[in-house]
């Protein structure tokens, strides 16, 4: 499907909103208002480019912790995000039970996951299997970092999807680091997409800072999956320009030059250039978006700060389905 100018602008807007929200999360952490943040800064084009190739709200998504922009594209609101950071009542993932950034959104078929990395990929294979069994034409999109492709479960998931020709798209967001460990210590191949060779599916590597390029590659993969052509492995090359999380200081293992280089290839910057070149974006439009994003982020923080915490009795529920909530 060719994208209209309006949709392209919306894609940029989604990236921008996610970026400004993410930046505010770092500020809230510095202010001591939240316990933890793990950032998707630098990954937004990969996530939004992919999201727009899906039937959002219908296709299934098993995401990983950097997927804020993906979630925003799926309809996760700024207030919902800040509520989750603050562990407030009304947080839609889990009622403040689940850790922030362990995304889920029932209304968007985005599935919650555990802390151990790559587990969501196996679930994606299972969802793909069920889709095939039920005979509908949905697809599953699952994401992870390149370091997490070292995990046995990741190979098992991809192998399954390839053997059973399941409608799964695996996206590896390769930011070159797993916390402090560079990708050369995770894999002996230059690209995570190379791993597809031995597993029998298509593997592609794409510039994950270019939202349109990601969209194109992803659209092809979605089309293949939907029409019974099986899974695809996509590596999106991205730049992590923040520390791993709010618990990390990356100065001990990364040169500032490298981080600066990453900023020069930043997703927001590169995608803006691409879209301006296409004539769908200009400085004035971006400025309007910036103003609107700031207003929305401010409003989300205000709403979340005003929201109550869940009652402590909530801790006891809902461990089992049969449990009727008392009170």
């Amino acid at each position, binding site marked *: 499907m060719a994208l209209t100018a309006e949709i392209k602008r919306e894609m940029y807007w989604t990236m921008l909103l996610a970026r400004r929200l993410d930046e505010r999360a770092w500020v809230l952490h510095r202010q001591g208002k939240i*316990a*933890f943040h793990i950032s998707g800064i630098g990954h937004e084009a990969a996530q939004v480019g992919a999201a727009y190739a899906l039937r959002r709200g219908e296709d299934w998504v098993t995401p990983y912790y950097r997927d804020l922009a993906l979630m925003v594209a799926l309809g996760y609101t700024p207030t919902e995000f800040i509520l989750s950071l603050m*562990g*407030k009542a009304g947080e839609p993932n*889990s009622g*403040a*039970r*689940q*850790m*922030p950034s*362990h995304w889920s959104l029932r209304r968007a078929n985005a599935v919650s996951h*555990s*802390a*151990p*990395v*790559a587990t969501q990929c196996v679930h994606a294979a299972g969802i793909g299997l069920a889709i095939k069994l039920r005979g509908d034409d949905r697809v599953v999109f699952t994401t992870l970092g390149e*370091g*997490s492709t*070292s*995990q*046995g*479960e990741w190979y098992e998931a991809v192998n399954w999807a390839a053997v059973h020709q399941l409608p799964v798209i695996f996206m590896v967001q390769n930011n070159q680091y*797993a*916390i*402090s*460990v560079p990708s050369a*210590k*995770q*894999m002996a191949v230059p690209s995570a997409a190379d791993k597809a060779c031995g597993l029998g599916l298509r593997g592609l590597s794409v510039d994950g800072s270019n939202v349109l390029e990601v969209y194109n590659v992803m659209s092809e993969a979605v089309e293949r999956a939907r029409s019974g052509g099986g899974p695809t492995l996509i590596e999106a090359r991205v730049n992590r320009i923040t520390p791993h999380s709010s618990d990390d200081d990356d100065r*001990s*293992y990364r040169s500032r030059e490298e981080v600066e280089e990453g900023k020069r290839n930043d997703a927001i910057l590169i995608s803006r250039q691409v879209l301006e070149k296409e004539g769908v974006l200009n400085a004035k439009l971006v400025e309007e978006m910036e103003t609107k994003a700031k207003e929305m982020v401010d409003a989300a923080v205000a709403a979340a700060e005003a929201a109550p*915490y*869940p009652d*402590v009795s*909530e*801790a*006891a*529920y809902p*461990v089992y389905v049969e449990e009727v909530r008392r009170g």
Partner: protein
Amino acid sequence: MARITMREAISQALWEEMERDPRVFILGEEVGVWGGTYAVTKGFYDHFGPERVRDTPIAEAAIVGAAIGAALVGTRPVAELMTINFAFAAMDHIVNEAAKLHYMFGGQMVLPLVIRTVGGGGRQLGATHSQTPDAVFAHFPGLKVVAPGTPADAKGLLKAAIRSQDPVMFIEHATLYQTRGEVPEGDYVVPIGKSTIQRTGKDITIITYSKMLEVSMKAADQLAGEGIEAEVVDLRTLRPLDMEPVLESFKKTNRAVIVEEGWKSYGVGAEISARIYEDAFDYVDAPIKRVAQLEVPLPYNRALEQMALPKVEQVVAAVKEVLNG
């Protein structure tokens, strides 16, 4: 004796053992350049080099499985799992291999392997980062399971673990790294499989270990203010379990409360109380009580999380119930 943190004590034990024995090496995620998730191996990479302080791919099954292979041929690996929650990804190797190889091989090969890992909640890291499943590992014959509650024990027990010919799960607690205590300098070894009395008292025995030692000691202080003298027994090793100090204390006080951070069902308290009933039934003056975590996955929100974790007030209340019951 120096007053140092738990982190420093563990670090010291590792460092000294690596200096003492060239066969000892460390492998795990982020242990090298970064210096470990809890900064225990900071400085090791520069001093001992990348061969002996190896950053591995994110693959817990391979970390433990490879450590087993390496241990079988005469090296002494100290495998670090970032948190005990990720140990489940290596469970097959821990319980089906490490715990059983020596036995299944008729004792012909030894497996001198240490798995250092970190458990416990209380840091708002959510249900799958915050578990205290120590009892799960203690279930398996063939494993030694150690969980120190003081810096001195951490140092001494880790040295013993590294020198052990058997596989040892060495479980640290995420919120104890800053805890300070007197730690003997130099070659200080605490034998695995010895419980100890951390505080003497005549009225009741509190049996505990790891983080809950801190909670129990606070409760004992508070109780002392009300004229109740609690004796606190620190298990230190969950397997092999040393019941001697527990039974000795119980035969004196005739009452007990067991405090553990994990869930009560099928837990450490269940084991200890069963053994007291089996081996000291004639001394029982009141039903034994257990204090443990609410039986839910630990929630993220701070108030909810704190509500679910065992607290000083609960220990105090349990003691009073047993005494007045």
